[in-house]
Structure formats: C-alpha cells, structure tokens
C-alpha cells in the first residue's frame, strides 16, 4: 500500500495490528503513534473501511471459491443459507438450489495424500467452462470445499456439470477424482 506522508507505521504492521498478531508492547507503540498522527490516522481509516466491508461482502454470498470449515462455520453463524453437497469420487448427484439458498458448498472427497494444491475444472458436454487452482487445507481431512454463489447456479439451465479435481506434481497435472452434478434448475418450496 502507498503511505501518504508519515511512514513511521508500516502498512504491514498496521495490518498485523488489526489482525491481533502483535505483542502488547508492539501494539501499544503503534497506538501511541496512531492517535497523534494525522497521516497514519488517514491510513488507519482506509484499512478500517476495508476491513469493515469484508464481512458484508462475504455474507452477500457472492464471493465463492475455495473455503475451509472455519469459513463455513462463520457463514452459518452469520445466518447465510448454504446448500451443501458431499460428493465421493465418481458420484453422479442430482443437484439444485432452493429459493432461500444463498451459497452452494461442494464437499469434494478424494484421496489427497501428499497433495497441497488442486485444480478444479468444470466441464459441460466435454467443454471446459472454468478452471481454478487452490490450496488443500491440512484440516480438511480428505476433502476440498468449493463454494459457488447460489445466484450463479440458478442461472444454469438443466444440465450435467462434470467437476474434475487434478493435483499438481512436478509441473504436471494428475487427475484425482471427478464428480457429476445433474443440475435440475432452481427449485421453489
């Protein structure tokens, strides 16, 4: 980040401060300066604005992507309605989102021993429509969790979507598992 004027507090330190990861003495030193410096106060205001908007942005269920149990738990505490599908390799599963659903979470079970990074590919009728690479969380115990905004799923026609997981090894991709979601459209109650 660019610091206007005073640079006595590094942006990185301000972020670590906000994350609660500085010692009490380090935090107190930052506070003593922050409350007497207009330049650093302005940067603090920017960071504050950014941090305060992250919660509403995530709760909007429009972000998606690879997540972990910790993120799903927080979403549940915040009242976000998540439709979860737990899929074993080779599974062919009818799937849909219902009226009140805000997010779809795909729990993709697979043999992830020794795998730290995977690529998730969506294919429709053999054509790749998206590809995204993310981390495998150590806490995940044999699954990756991928979140898709329900609003995006609602736009899909009735269609079969193949989801393929591949691992990265020595700059090569190795298929791990594939799953088929038979999308049945948006459902009302």
């Amino acid at each position, binding site marked *: 980040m660019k610091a206007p004027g005073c640079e006595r507090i590094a*942006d990185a330190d301000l972020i670590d401060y*906000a994350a609660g990861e500085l010692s009490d003495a380090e935090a107190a030193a930052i506070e003593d300066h922050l409350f007497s410096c207009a330049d650093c106060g302005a940067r603090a205001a920017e960071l504050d604005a950014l941090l305060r908007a992250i*919660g509403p942005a995530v709760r909007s269920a429009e972000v998606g992507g690879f997540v972990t149990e910790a993120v799903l738990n927080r979403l549940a505490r915040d009242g976000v309605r998540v439709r979860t599908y737990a899929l074993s390799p080779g599974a062919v599963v009818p799937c849909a989102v219902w009226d009140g659903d805000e997010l779809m979470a795909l729990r993709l079970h697979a043999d992830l021993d020794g795998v730290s990074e995977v690529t998730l590919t969506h294919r429709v009728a053999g054509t790749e429509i998206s590809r995204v690479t993310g981390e495998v969380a150590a806490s995940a115990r044999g699954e990756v969790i991928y979140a898709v905004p329900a609003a995006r799923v609602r736009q899909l026609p009735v269609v079969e979507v193949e989801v393929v997981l591949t691992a990265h090894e020595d700059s090569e991709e190795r298929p791990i598992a594939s799953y088929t979601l038979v999308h049945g459209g948006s459902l009302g109650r």
Partner: protein
Amino acid sequence: MPDTKATLGAVSDEALARRIAGGPPGSSDAEEAELYRRFAPRVRLYGRRHLQNDAASDDLAQDVLLLTIERLRAGEVRRPEEIGSFILGTSRMMAHSERRVARRRVALAAQFMETAATAPPSMAALDVPRLTACLRALAERDRLVVLLTFYADREAPRIAEDLGVSPGAVRVIRHRAMARLRECVLGGARP
C-alpha cells in the same frame, strides 16, 4: 462562503479540540463531527485488536468519541494539544470496563444522540459490491488467507498450519492481498 468540511479538514487536532472546548453549547457541531470522522476509525481498529468483535468495536468508537466530546464541552480535557492521547487513554479505559461502557452508552446516546447521528461514517464511500468483485479477483490462496483472518478470525499460526506454510508466509500473503484489495477498491483498478 468557504466549504466548512474542507476548511475543517485543514484544522489541526488541537485547534479542533479547542474550538469544541471553547464554544457555547450547539456552536461546534461541525467540529464535533470532524473529530468523530478523524478518530472513530482509529478507535475501531483499537477495538478490533482488543475486543475482537466488529459490533463491540463500533460501540467502543461511539462511546469513546461521545465521552471525549462531553469532556471537551465540560472543559475537562486539560491538554487539548494532546487530544489524540486523551482519546487513546479513553479507548483503553473503556475497553477494559465493558460493564461501565454499557451503562454509559444509554445515558450518553440519549444526551448526544444528535451529534452521533449526524457524524459522517468513515466507510460511507466504500462500495461493498465492488469489494465483493475485488475479493473474487484475488488469487484463491490470497482470498482464503484474507477470509480466514478477517472473517473467520483465525490467527496466522493456525492458518499457516492449515495451508502448510510458515506464519511469516501467511503474513506476507495477507499484506500482498490487502494491498491488492486496497488498490482494487480505492484505487479504481478494474477487478
């Protein structure tokens, strides 16, 4: 006629405090709003660090600034040239006495409701849909670290264990991701 907001923006913290302290009741609404605009974000960050709760941080910022204005009006701030230190000291005191905060909130909000209601929120201009788009535009790992830190309240060592990297690497990823977010949201870059 000069723009009051622009004029006040150039006034030092000390001068702002002296104007609030020196004017008759009701004569320094603009100065009080400016003091709130300048310091509320800092108190909120302080609250985030010490209370680990967004709602409690919001309350703390409101309580601290309302009490500060009350003390200034009453002539009880001995050194207006150190108004920042006064606000920090008040933040520390209030964060450590939540029961007292809860009692004062009711009384102060009733007494100074008008000032609190008219004080401009510091994040009013931040576009949440834009931030959403900018979060989506981050690399998967960068976004996950930001979400785990600032949404799921996970500390770097735990995130590091999860992602199989060092805590230092988590901080580097987080700094980079936050810089990109800032550029994307505030700098106007296309996500």
